[in-house]
């Protein structure tokens, strides 16, 4: 296990996660929020792939299989999110998250 490469990869995926989380916290447009969520999700998928590359035998195959499954699930989640955006746009006429303030007391 080459230590230097591992640090680099974990740094890369952590940076992706940070970018995604920053987007989730700052973006007010629902579509851009979805993109930010996807970026953060890809950090986890990337982690699985290169930890798989570093391990040997069946452990490595597990990681690759997980990556494929998680990609599929992420797509499902985005489909649901887009459905909510459509309904929201139809009722409220905006997809700005900051305008959704009916549920405050």
């Amino acid at each position: 296990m080459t230590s230097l490469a591992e640090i680099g990869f974990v740094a890369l995926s952590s940076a992706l996660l940070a970018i995604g989380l920053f987007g989730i916290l700052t973006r007010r447009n629902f579509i851009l929020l979805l993109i930010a969520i996807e970026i953060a999700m890809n950090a986890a998928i990337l982690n699985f792939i290169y930890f798989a590359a570093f391990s040997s035998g069946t452990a490595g195959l597990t990681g690759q299989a997980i990556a494929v499954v998680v990609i599929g699930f992420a797509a499902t989640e985005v489909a649901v999110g887009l459905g909510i955006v459509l309904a929201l746009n139809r009722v409220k006429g905006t997809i700005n998250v900051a305008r959704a303030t009916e549920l405050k007391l």
Partner: protein
Amino acid sequence: MDIGSFAGPFLPEIFLLAGALLVFLLDVLNVRRNEVVGAIAVVTTALALLFVVADLGFAPFAGLATIPAGAIDATPSGAPLYTFTSLGLVFQGVFLAAAFLVSLASLSRPSEERGAPIFYGLLLIATLGMVLVAIASDLIFLLLAIEVSSIATYLLVAYTRRDSRSLEAAMKFYIIGALSTVLSFFGASLLYGAYGTTNLVAIAHVAGTVGYPVLVLLGYGFLIAGLAFKATLVPFHAWAVDVYDGAPTDVSSFLAGGSKKVGIFAFFLVFLAPILYVRTAPSGGPFTTGTVALGPVLQLTLSVVAVLTMTVGNVLALLQKEMKRMLAYSSISQAGYMMIGIAVGTAPALAGATLQVFAHVFMKGGAFLVVAGVSALGVGPLIEDWRGLGTRKPVLGVAFGLMLLSLAGVPLTVGFVSKFVLFSAAVDARGYFVWLAVAGLLNSALSVFYYARVLKIMFFDAPIPRAQPTGAVVGGSEPARLPAGGLGYGRAMAIGIAVAVIVAAGIYPQLVLGPIQNAAQHFVNLGI
């Protein structure tokens, strides 16, 4: 292995999936009456519940058991994706009971209501995901099962598609849920990097040989954050109030009574093994700086989270003016009590937490069902609007009062039994866990204030004149189409069942306490 012996143990899951597909098929065939699709959901969840109870070995149904004897609580060989534990079966029963009560109560909604098939179909799919969570023994299997239930519940919140409040709730729920998924999967990927496997059984058996303390700590940290969103723990709780408030109230009942417990059980599954066994040790490399005894670190973190959750939930519940928001904050504080179980990590504590989960389905789920019924009668959302309801509708008032007393932990209700078992387990564990019990007791005392305020408003304040049910009815034609005391038979039955369980398990706790204690003991012995 023939298909029958493979499918046998999964009968509850198969029933749920078949029921959901049947409901969606009927939707396509234009059969959309609420009673028809609702009856399918009720029958499906009842059958699945029956088989789970049979598998747990309760006397009259034991003959129906489909999981072969010895397969429950058996030490798993290799790295299986799923394991049948009796504690998991108890949680399956709890999830199915919540779904059963909600679908039974929803039978009383207007039969021409839009979106009924979508509601019941999504309810069954969400329940399917929750039931799968309860048998998981692999981190990825667990997270994907949680996803199945979460995605269905995002849509469930917004199934009416017209109400802007519930759409806003769905939007918030979706964003927070997706964030929690991301954090959970990132944590799982770090654990995979450290352990080389995502199997919880395998992780439990690598004790003492893990070479990456930093990866392990970060991984569990991200998992705590991700799962805490699902279980509505402070500081990841803020979404729950808006979602429970904005969602259709029957859906709130399902979220608070059922799907939140998914997070609690996931905590049991993921964190019991590291608390009991796993130590990380240095072995050279970039992420190895020193030895970490993982158990105490996690226990301290989870204890702090538990105390914060119950306190913040209770204090904010005191300040609420709306009934649903008050119940939502009280639901958050109850999640804090449940977390004591895993923070202490002994078998009696897990039993207490499980009993609390069991009780919460009937107390909080039932309370939300009452709120849904009462608002269908034309009563407003504020607590003040409930003035005099106890005298106008005595039976309903007494039922709701019993649920609140049980939430507060008054003796002769199941809420008292669960808190007693939980807090005494924390005291028995010694150390700083005694302070968990103290915090829990203080919080219970605090919670009595806001429950008692509701009781006072319901029973001792004079009704608001305009809401009198006699004479010119303000609520329009609604009372006319609702038989049986204005609630509808289905909702009345669901509330009746909830009250019966609260009282029966409160007066005669051995009914459920014994099996749950056995299950928790087996679960700790197994130590997945």
